[in-house]
């Protein structure tokens, strides 16, 4: 699988052409030197084997552009994405589940139809529209209306420009709010629908009737019997979503210039920087597969009827 990806990226991007375009008068010796420095000599399978051997020994090399070591930059991007993903998922899933629970307990009520409509709108708005809309409202209009000298909420970055690199939780949080909201909107929409459907299904089940017939209080029926069972499918969906976060916030990160995995990918991609792209691909795919496995295992663990 990594071989296929390697071939696709190596065939798709041509760093040598880029190099000769930038340095139009480079001599043949210079080009050869450039090729050797970046592991571009030999046939593609040869290159692949060499790359894989280095990769498993954790020698991830340096980027073609700027000659930055790959591992530290990918590590920073990873931690930034994980923070954003965790922030957005915690808010998104809690609010989404809450809305879904209330909506299904009061089926066909005003709240139910309102939240359904909201979820539909939320699912139909692509992240780039909501992201720019938030930038417009919070970074531009609020600043204008309140007469502030700097944006009400920062529209981009992880820290303001010129920040000394030390950890500052308040600034950090401020920069998380807008991108986090964009991701959370989608998460809320998806999870409120899931939760509602799942709980409605459980609500009509026989064991709930049995529980009521035993004379248990309604709260206990809902919390202990209905919710616990309705949450089982949600947990697995959540696990799969967690795996997708690492590579899946590209659009949001790009618009807010948030230095995460998505931004890392797009920059590396536009530069045709395959020493950076390959580890990125491996990490993203590995996390997807890993979390799919975790989803299967938790499902079997939570629902004894399922055998792996």
């Amino acid at each position: 699988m990594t071989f296929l990806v390697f071939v696709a990226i190596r065939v798709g991007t041509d760093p040598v052409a880029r190099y000769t375009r930038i340095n139009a008068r480079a001599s043949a010796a210079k080009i050869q030197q450039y090729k050797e420095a970046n592991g571009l000599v030999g046939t593609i399978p040869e290159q692949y084997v060499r790359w894989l051997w280095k990769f498993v020994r954790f020698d991830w090399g340096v980027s073609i552009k700027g000659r930055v070591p790959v591992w530290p930059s990918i590590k920073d991007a990873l931690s930034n994405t994980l923070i954003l993903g965790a922030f957005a998922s915690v808010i998104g899933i809690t609010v989404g589940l809450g809305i879904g629970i209330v909506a299904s307990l009061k089926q066909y009520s005003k709240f139910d139809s309102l939240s359904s409509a909201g979820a539909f709108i939320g699912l139909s708005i692509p992240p780039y529209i909501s992201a720019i809309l938030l930038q417009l409202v919070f970074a531009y209009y609020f600043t204008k209306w309140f007469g502030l000298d700097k944006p009400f909420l920062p529209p981009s970055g992880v820290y303001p420009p010129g920040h000394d690199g030390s950890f500052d939780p308040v600034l950090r949080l401020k920069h998380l709010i807008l991108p986090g909201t964009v991701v959370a909107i989608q998460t809320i929409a998806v999870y409120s629908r899931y939760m509602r459907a799942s709980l409605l299904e459980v609500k009509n089940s026989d064991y709930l009737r049995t529980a009521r017939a035993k004379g248990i209080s309604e709260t206990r029926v809902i919390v202990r019997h209905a919710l616990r069972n309705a949450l089982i499918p949600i947990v697995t969906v959540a696990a799969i979503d967690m795996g997708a976060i690492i590579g899946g916030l590209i659009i949001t990160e790009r618009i807010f210039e948030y230095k995460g995995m998505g931004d890392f990918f797009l920059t590396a991609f536009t530069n045709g920087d395959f020493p950076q792209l390959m580890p990125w691909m491996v990490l993203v795919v590995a996390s997807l597969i890993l979390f799919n496995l975790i989803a299967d295992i938790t499902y079997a663990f939570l629902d004894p009827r399922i055998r792996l």
Partner: protein
Amino acid sequence: MTDISEFEAAITKPHVPNGEPTADEVNALVDSVSPSRLALRRFLRHRVAMAALIIFVVIALIIIFAPITTRYGEIEILPPVDGKRSFNPPSAKAWFGTDELNRDLYSRVIWGGRVSLFIGLTVALFASMIGTLVGAVAGYRGGLIDDMLMRTTDLFLAFPTLVLLLVVRNLFDQLSWLNWLVGDLKSIRFIIVLLVALSWMSVARIVRGTVLSLKEREFVEASIALGSSAPRIVVRHLIPNAIGPIIVSLTTSIVGAIVAESTLAFFGFGIDPVYKTSWGGLLGASKGQVLTGKWWLLVFPGVVFVITIMCINFIGDAFRDAFDPKQGQARR
């Protein structure tokens, strides 16, 4: 004729014990025998979907008749307003304002809609055709074709969509033997081929699943017993019976293609913005500009885009309920 009237009498009798049933009642009962009629009727009864359909048709008509409904050409540059050569806010001259080259945004939203909708519909059509055929054959035949289909889709599902789009885009561009098919990197054709290549697989998976359950049914068995060939069974029996899921996945593919194209265009990987534009391209142009308060660049294309997407989503949803009422109840 006699046997049909007997049949009518038999099915109407319990409901109308006294007197002859009226012609309308008989027609209604006879009509409801056909499942596709039933589905159509359920669809028409879906109020939200009908509203969505009407809005979508209006948008589509405005876009189709772009030469009449637009006020300026696609790349026509307006004369300066009050000496301003760019970014004029909405006015009587330019209803939606103008962009960085002083082009009328109202006209460009409509022209862009042409590109977006054309790409969406074409991609969905081709993807559904290829996906239906491959999915039906894979589901019916099983074996090697089936395994290959499932492994390829598994492979493609392991990557984020945008990553896949970008990597395959570069790949298509570099493979010279694909040139006759994909054309120029920044052409509409290239985008269509790229999106079809990546979206037929989801249709194929859905059709495969449906065919897997259909092929065990009695009517397929009967057809085999009558000596039908495999292609005939696939084309005459399996595909027509899977039409519900196919139409539903067609609508999802339209949305998927429009959104995918917009995403590519948004990040500047779409069609050449000098001659043509799409909704994604217009939205992408608003990216840096909203921070200086040029709200019209985002709001007008954004609202049109979201309304269109929502309409298609609602229509698809109604199709799903119409073709599969049981599933619809469970979801509600």
